């Protein structure tokens, strides 16, 4: 008889497919994962503590650095919460600019997911395709606010500067081109035999489990739960825009993957409408130099690219928040990963982790 025993291995924190500094402590029985323990906090910067020492305006750049792949959406979540506390009315043009930026950022973020997931399971070409298109979005953002990653663009009251007719033109041209590029990605990746075999039926999460773990975003909707804050509790001008909430039923890696390219198509739909409807007017409301929301609290949610992003602010009437808490969708989705990879083969770990699309900046804050 050969003596066999379980072994423990460390995956990360320096591992290319953990998408950042995540450490997974895996217990293996041969090729099968019998236990998985995520270890996080390597990127913890104490953003919630920092926020208590800064003015409301100074916090906006901090929000850029939580989910750094979709900073526009983080900006919006925070700005919306402060506006709610202060009772500010945002001009309609600013709202439309915000929606345009958010949906462009959602597309950019999903493109990174598609490319990175391809890499995770061994397809390196689509990654270059996705980044080529994402580059266009980065150029648009650079044109609007001068930054390519940390925008500090959506601020309480509106946006930091107006967009030009040239921006609108370029955005329209990009949106027109994007669907054919998505068809290309579908040919290369979504219908790729290797991707399908490695994803179908892997890492299945039931709707009940997903809700109990409070998962959100495409990862939740791929398990058949049609929850999307943009439709269920519309903020900004989403109630004026027509789009579908992509819901798939399998709850496996393939469903979680397919949800993203499908969501990009819905974002294109939103962008087409928003760019057409973009009204003239002010790009920001009149805001005081120092923001001092009245004492009180608010809990505000938006639909970020990774899911339900909540911002909880307790104000004591001073220029800094008494308490600021983010409900980070990546952190909460990641909490399920231990259960999700138990029982699957070690090669499936990267696929399952990849489809959760976590950003460690948001997990650790």
């Amino acid at each position: 008889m050969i003596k066999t025993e379980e072994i423990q291995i460390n995956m990360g924190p320096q591992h290319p497919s953990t998408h950042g500094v995540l450490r997974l402590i895996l217990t293996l029985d041969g090729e099968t994962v019998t236990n998985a323990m995520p270890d996080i906090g390597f990127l913890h910067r104490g953003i919630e503590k920092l926020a208590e020492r800064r003015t409301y305006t100074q916090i906006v750049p901090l929000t850029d650095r939580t989910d750094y792949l979709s900073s526009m959406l983080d900006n919006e979540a925070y700005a919306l919460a402060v506006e709610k506390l202060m009772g500010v009315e945002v001009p309609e043009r600013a709202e439309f600019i915000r929606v345009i930026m958010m949906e462009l950022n959602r597309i950019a973020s999903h493109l990174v997911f598609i490319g990175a997931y391809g890499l995770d399971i061994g397809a390196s070409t689509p990654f270059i395709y996705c980044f080529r298109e994402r580059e266009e979005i980065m150029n648009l953002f650079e044109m609007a606010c001068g930054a390519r990653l940390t925008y500090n663009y959506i601020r309480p009251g509106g946006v930091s500067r107006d967009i030009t007719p040239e921006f609108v033109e370029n955005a329209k041209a990009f949106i027109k081109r994007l669907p054919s590029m998505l068809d290309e990605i579908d040919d290369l990746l979504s219908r790729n035999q290797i991707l399908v075999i490695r994803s179908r039926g892997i890492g299945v999460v039931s709707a009940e489990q997903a809700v109990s773990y409070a998962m959100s975003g495409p990862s939740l909707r791929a398990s058949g739960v049609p929850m999307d804050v943009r439709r269920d509790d519309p903020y900004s001008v989403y109630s004026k825009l027509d789009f579908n909430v992509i819901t798939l039923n399998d709850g496996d890696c393939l469903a979680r993957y397919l949800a993203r390219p499908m969501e990009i198509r819905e974002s294109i739909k939103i962008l087409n409408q928003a760019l057409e409807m973009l009204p003239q007017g002010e790009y920001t409301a009149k805001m005081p130099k120092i923001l001092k929301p009245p004492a009180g609290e608010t809990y505000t949610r938006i639909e970020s690219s990774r899911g339900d992003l909540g911002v909880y602010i307790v104000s004591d009437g001073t220029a800094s928040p008494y308490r600021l808490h983010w409900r980070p969708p990546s952190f909460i989705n990641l909490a399920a990963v231990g259960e999700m990879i138990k029982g699957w083969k070690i090669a499936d770990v990267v696929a399952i982790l990849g489809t959760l699309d976590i950003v460690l900046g948001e997990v650790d804050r």
Partner: protein
Amino acid sequence: MQNREIFKHMITSKDIEQAILGRFMEGVEPAGEVSGAPVFFACPEKIVEICRFLKSEPGLEFNYLASLTAVDYPHGFEVVYHLYSISKKAYVTLKVKSGKDAPCVPSVTSVWLAADWQEREVYDMFGINFSGHPDMRRILMDQDWQGYPLRKDYVEE
């Protein structure tokens, strides 16, 4: 913006209040509304029972623990639960007060798996113990870290 208010709750704050107060004679008291969601203060001994009731009661179905966090007030800690009902599209906020000395609140991990990491984060940042939690360890800070960073009396090195 008016648009944000267009959305109509299928159950009103009044309905939620009636349901909770009808079921619990004591241990829970209403505390107004915040961002359209009714707020209740619950006593620690009742919190698990209240959560289970809100989650499983037909007509309420607050099956989604959106957020669990805490605030350090001068008078003591408050653990804040933001619940959401996916089917009714409604929110409710629960708060549990806890003293400054050896703060301890019962864990709701038996109701929602989502409470696991979020309670660990609160423990990590505020030093509030959640009794009945299966794995009460620090999560973001080092395991041997001294002090609780988000407490107001925390002194930075």
